[in-house]
């Protein structure tokens, strides 16, 4: 949805991820970009260049925080120290909403630095929803929870991934960061129809969309974020926009990062689908 409670009523357009190889270009050329998404953890440091760059970016641009280590799906309780660090960053960035993943990734104080899939059970949905509520209350901003790419499914699962996502966000009363590429990757790895996924999540809760590239291997697809967006993902994006309306959209490009202009141009392709959708709606 364009502006809704889950993105704190902010009507953002097309953004890109803020990445180190582009710092100099952005600070020197000051290109017009609707908004940047930052990986929160890269700026949860005590000082130095990362925060200096962030402050300079914040003077000119709108920034939204995206986390990779809150581990909202963890069976352990959320790490309070980690939440405090995020909150410090929230005060700095004034992010209107923030996002993290529907996953787990650490156990007994050991970190995998990965976004591990969850068993889709009612019990896990409840624990995750409790975690999201706790985090959102503590941080004082709405949270959009993102679906991850996965390569394994559990015997223990009691429902489909989209049913699980819906169960979690309804229970937590939070938003969705709908990663269209992740849906595509998982659909290929697990053999489901990605349009069933798109059609069956609560559309009014989508506060943000991710698009990205992936890599095909012989027997599975990996979420590599090192390519332009592939055609099947653009098609899904067009369908998603039809369902949820014009929504803040962000292109993720994390590896083999090309020039700033290439990344930005790739992201702006999303406008075609948005405009087409608008024209259709007007007609």
């Amino acid at each position, binding site marked *: 949805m364009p502006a809704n409670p889950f993105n704190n009523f902010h009507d953002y357009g097309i953004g890109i991820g803020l*990445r*180190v190889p582009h710092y100099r270009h952005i600070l020197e050329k000051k290109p017009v970009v609707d908004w940047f998404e930052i*990986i929160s*953890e*890269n700026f*949860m*440091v*005590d*000082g*130095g*260049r*990362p*925060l*200096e760059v962030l402050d300079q970016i914040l003077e000119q641009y709108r920034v939204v925080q995206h986390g*990779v*280590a809150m581990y909202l799906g963890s069976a352990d309780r959320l*790490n309070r120290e*980690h939440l405090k660090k995020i909150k410090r960053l929230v005060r700095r960035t004034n992010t209107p909403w923030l996002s993290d*993943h529907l996953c787990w990734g*650490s*156990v007994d*104080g*050991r*970190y*995998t*630095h*990965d*976004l*591990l899939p969850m068993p889709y059970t009612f019990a896990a949905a409840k624990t995750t929803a409790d975690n999201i509520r706790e985090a959102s209350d503590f941080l004082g901003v709405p949270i959009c929870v993102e679906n991850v790419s996965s*390569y*394994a*499914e*559990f*015997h*223990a699962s009691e429902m489909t991934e989209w049913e699980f996502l819906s169960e979690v966000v309804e229970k937590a009363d939070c938003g969705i960061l709908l990663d269209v590429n992740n849906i595509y990757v998982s659909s290929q*790895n*697990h*053999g489901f129809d990605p349009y069933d996924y798109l059609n069956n999540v609560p559309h009014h809760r989508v506060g943000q969309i991710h698009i990205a590239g992936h*890599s095909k291997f012989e*027997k*599975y697809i*990996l*979420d*590599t*974020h*090192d390519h332009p967006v592939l055609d099947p993902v653009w098609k899904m994006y067009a369908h998603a926009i039809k369902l949820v309306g014009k929504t803040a959209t962000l292109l993720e490009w*994390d*590896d083999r990062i090309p020039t700033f202009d290439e990344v930005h141009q790739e992201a702006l392709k999303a406008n075609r689908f948005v405009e087409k959708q608008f024209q259709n709606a007007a007609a």
Partner: protein
Amino acid sequence: MATAVFRPLNARDGMQARWTDGRETSTVAESFIKPNDRLSSFERLEIYNRVYWFRVLDCLYDDYPGLRAIVGEKRFLDLATAYLAKYPSASFTLRNLGSRLEKFLGEEPQWVTPNEELALDMARFEWAQIVAFDDAALPQLTTDALDTPPAKLRVRLQPYLSLLELNFAVDKFLLAVKKREGDTLRDEASNTFEAMPQSSKRRRAVRLPKRERVLLAVHRYDNQLYYKRLEPEAFAILCGLANGLTVEKACVAGLAKTKRTKVDWPRQIQEWFHDWSALGWICQRKSVGGIVAG
């Protein structure tokens, strides 16, 4: 699942065939992961196991080019694997992945024979650079505080500053290594798959440094990383300050072992403090409530 993810890969970069209790890992994988028409439960779990190790090894590979040059690429990956098997990441950020490497090398020097001391120096030096990059900067000493008599004044040094007493000129060695390799920036945290670090193409190895006592400050200025060699007396004074001595006692202790007699010490010390202040190294003992007078 976490147990499987953290277990080191086998020699062919695959998941180990035997589980911790001797069962077949495939049996364990089948007990909780569904197979599909292309991949077995084992193979699906193995994707996560491989991604974990590629990611963490890649991170250490980037963060420790000097240590890598000392022990060689293959041994570096073996040592990094052994280190992470013993000390898995205990932080939300990959930035801290090497925080216990110095400890590990002290405990298990067999990974770096016959260059144990050199490797340890390099591990400390490379960690100090990570600290210098993004550790906290405290408010510098105020002019008011400078009026406090040296006998009462205690200060703190910047958290991003490391003082290293080294047995080898690892600073010059690392510069030569980086010149050879082409400097690489630390990568950002990201959640995507990364390829296994590839052994660099054959390049002429940089000659290992000879034994030489080096006293080094690793710090940042204007958010750029710097190393600065220090004279023994200056190093000792800074260590005294870092350990909480008053300025006066730190100076006395710093000069206690000097054999240099032809130096105008009061002038020299004044110059040093002037330099250190200009570099921003000297700060309030406590960030709130001003200095602590002893």
